[in-house]
């Protein structure tokens, strides 16, 4: 009884804090401080389940073959609030953001087939930075630059299970669409004069992704591979209300990526996860020319999920991720993260997943500490034993 009351209070307090944070975060657009380069901050996974397990790619919803057995229709939607503390040269800046990051659905079809549709954020280009205030020719000047937007994936996929759902293969075609707007404010402060230049950029592209999941005894293996087809970038630079520069149809040839994941379900009520991801960003070309500033990225995740009882999982994970970007010193930006999360049953509906990631991301000079929360809500089958959830929908 006492435990129930405590749980009730905990839920109420959690609810209050969550609502308050959501309301507050709406007023400020946040960022990764590293999302100003390249295509922005890459999101390899977008749902709370994957996030809580160190960031799963091949063992999560990013794999077209996931889950290995799809029995009922499933819809999933995720929202991510970010809290970022940037640190550079003994200066700190805090900023936060909230935005929806994905929504997807999968439908089982006869003969072991399935179909799916997904909309998710792939690159985040939100940022908000100030330059230092400097004196130039007797005037104090400062720049303030705000970026909004990103690149999104609209994907449609099919899959089929074989061998009594011991093997599932999936294929997904994605249309990559993106739009961003950067507003460059220039302030001359002795007169409070503010000037605005704007950069509007549109992205388009396509990709195909293959996935496979196989279950052999207590081991489940996930594989994914994606080939991003050549895309196009259009951009306008607008100063004082007129287009002063523009780029039409800049071709980019994007990299491929591959992922491998292994789940070991040997221990009672506990599963162990290993997820690897590689992307050859150094091969990216603009207008058929190799460009510098991009590095091959590699992600390593290890995680564990333990079920305290049939309805209450605990998830924890670690991640080390060398991103595709280098900082302005030329050093590859990397991150390591501690992740955790759980699920709450929503009777007659589905479940509510939540996760928390504490991420330390850095180059040589700039470091950022990110507190990233992810909320995912799922509508699918009636609540059932969760111990096989990763591959038993």
């Amino acid at each position: 009884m006492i435990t129930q009351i405590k749980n009730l209070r905990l839920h109420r307090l959690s609810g209050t804090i969550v609502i308050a944070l959501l309301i507050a975060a709406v007023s400020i657009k946040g960022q990764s401080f590293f999302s100003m380069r390249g295509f922005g901050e890459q999101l390899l996974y977008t749902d709370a389940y994957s996030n809580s397990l160190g960031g799963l790619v091949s063992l999560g919803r990013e794999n077209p073959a996931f889950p290995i057995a799809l029995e009922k229709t499933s819809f999933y939607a995720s929202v991510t609030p970010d809290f970022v503390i940037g640190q550079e040269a003994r200066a700190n800046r805090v900023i936060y953001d909230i935005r929806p990051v994905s929504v997807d659905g999968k439908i089982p079809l006869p003969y072991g087939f399935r179909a799916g549709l997904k909309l998710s954020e792939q690159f985040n280009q939100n940022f908000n930075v100030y330059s230092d205030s400097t004196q130039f020719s007797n005037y104090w000047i400062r720049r303030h630059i705000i970026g909004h937007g990103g690149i999104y994936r609209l994907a449609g996929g099919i899959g089929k299970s074989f061998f009594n759902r011991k093997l599932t293969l999936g294929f997904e075609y994605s249309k990559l669409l993106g739009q961003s707007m950067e507003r460059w404010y220039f302030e001359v402060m002795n007169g409070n004069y503010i000037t605005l230049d704007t950069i509007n950029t549109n992205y388009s592209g396509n990709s195909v992704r293959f996935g496979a999941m196989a279950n052999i005894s207590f081991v489940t293996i996930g594989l994914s591979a994606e080939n991003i087809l050549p895309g196009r970038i259009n951009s306008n630079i607008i100063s004082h209300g007129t287009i002063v520069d523009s780029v039409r149809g800049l071709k980019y040839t994007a990299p491929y990526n591959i992922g491998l994941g292994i789940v070991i379900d040997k221990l009672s009520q506990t599963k162990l996860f290993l997820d690897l991801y590689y992307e050859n960003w150094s091969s990216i070309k603009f207008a058929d020319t190799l460009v510098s500033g991009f590095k091959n990225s590699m992600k390593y995740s290890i995680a564990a999920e333990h079920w305290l009882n049939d309805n209450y999982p605990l998830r924890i994970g670690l991640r080390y991720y060398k991103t595709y970007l280098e900082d302005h010193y030329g050093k590859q930006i990397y991150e390591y993260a501690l992740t955790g999360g759980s699920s709450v049953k929503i009777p007659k509906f589905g479940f509510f997943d939540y996760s928390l990631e504490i991420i330390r991301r850095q180059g040589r000079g700039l470091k950022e500490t990110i507190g990233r929360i992810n909320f995912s809500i799922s509508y699918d089958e009636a609540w059932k034993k969760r111990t096989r959830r990763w591959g038993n929908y």
Partner: protein
Amino acid sequence: MNKIMLRKFYRYSLVLLLLLVSTLLIKCDRTPVGYDELGREISEPIFNNFRPVNHFCYGKYVPLGSADYLVLGRNTEYESRVLLQFPIDTVTTTGITGIKLILYPKHFSTISFTLHLINKESEWVENTTTWDRAYEGQPWITNGGDYHSLVLASATLTSDSCIIPIAVSSSILDSLQNNSNGIILLPNSTNDSFATINSKSISTKAPKLVFEYSGTIRNFTPSQDCHIINTINVAPQPYIDYWVGAGYPFRTILRFNLDTIPSHVTIAYAELVLPIQSQYSLSDSIDVGTWQVLDTVYNTFTPVASNIWVSATRIVSTDTMVIFDIRKAVQFWITKPDSNFGIQISGYPENYEINRIKFKTGNIGPYLKIGYILPPKGRFGQ
């Protein structure tokens, strides 16, 4: 139950308060963290000063008929007369025992003046009449208005309402009604100051002509009123001086050569600075504005845009310079150099009262401070 609700209320209030404070703190945080990671080519701003390459300064009679206040008076530099016309053409004059003109000054000094009838032949139109013309295209026979030498009345403004009796006679009544085009108020040459009188635009304090009959009175407000202003020994040197003013307006046209500024830049800062040498005004402040000049030929008829171009600025006696933020104007000139005909600075409004600013000339005279930046580069160097 109430205690529980109160506790809940405190808890929620605390959370919201913390939230509000943290939001404000985060919003006010402007430290330059992460700026270097932009990795873009960012140019330094460029600041330059420009002196006018062409200028022209002139004074001109302008219609003052739509002013809220009528100016009456004179000194060694200006004279201002007031013209009034009342709708009395069809009014019966039989039985009139007295006539009064009532004025309500807004600002007054001791101004002595005389009333005269304006000649019947000299029709005037308040919206176009000036010191040298009765209406558009029709000059007065004598500058300053054509009037009878007969003095209808003499008076002195000494308070905030002035009642001026006019002697009644059949000839005056006949002249007033049938042989004149209203009344002109002439300040005496002994004056050395000015008064402002509420015009018909201020309906509650408009000038009144009162006809007194035995047992009754009839009031008339003007069908037309205006003032006309002349200068006496006040004139700028057109290619040396920089004057602006109102009443008898002075205007200054300036043009700057901005060919050295690239056409695609963004003007971040553009201040037109006019150092003040002296100023004269009936009131505490002078309002000035700027207009877009539409022709390269500078004279008293150089056309300007009808709408004010850059915001007006209010100058008080302690100001040492007039500063306009003309970023939009400079951006326009940079983007369309063929339209850089110049900028006109003049009183705003020009018909309100009498004022004048003389600006310094030469190397300490007007100049334009411009700061501009090159457009930013996109993510991929485009």
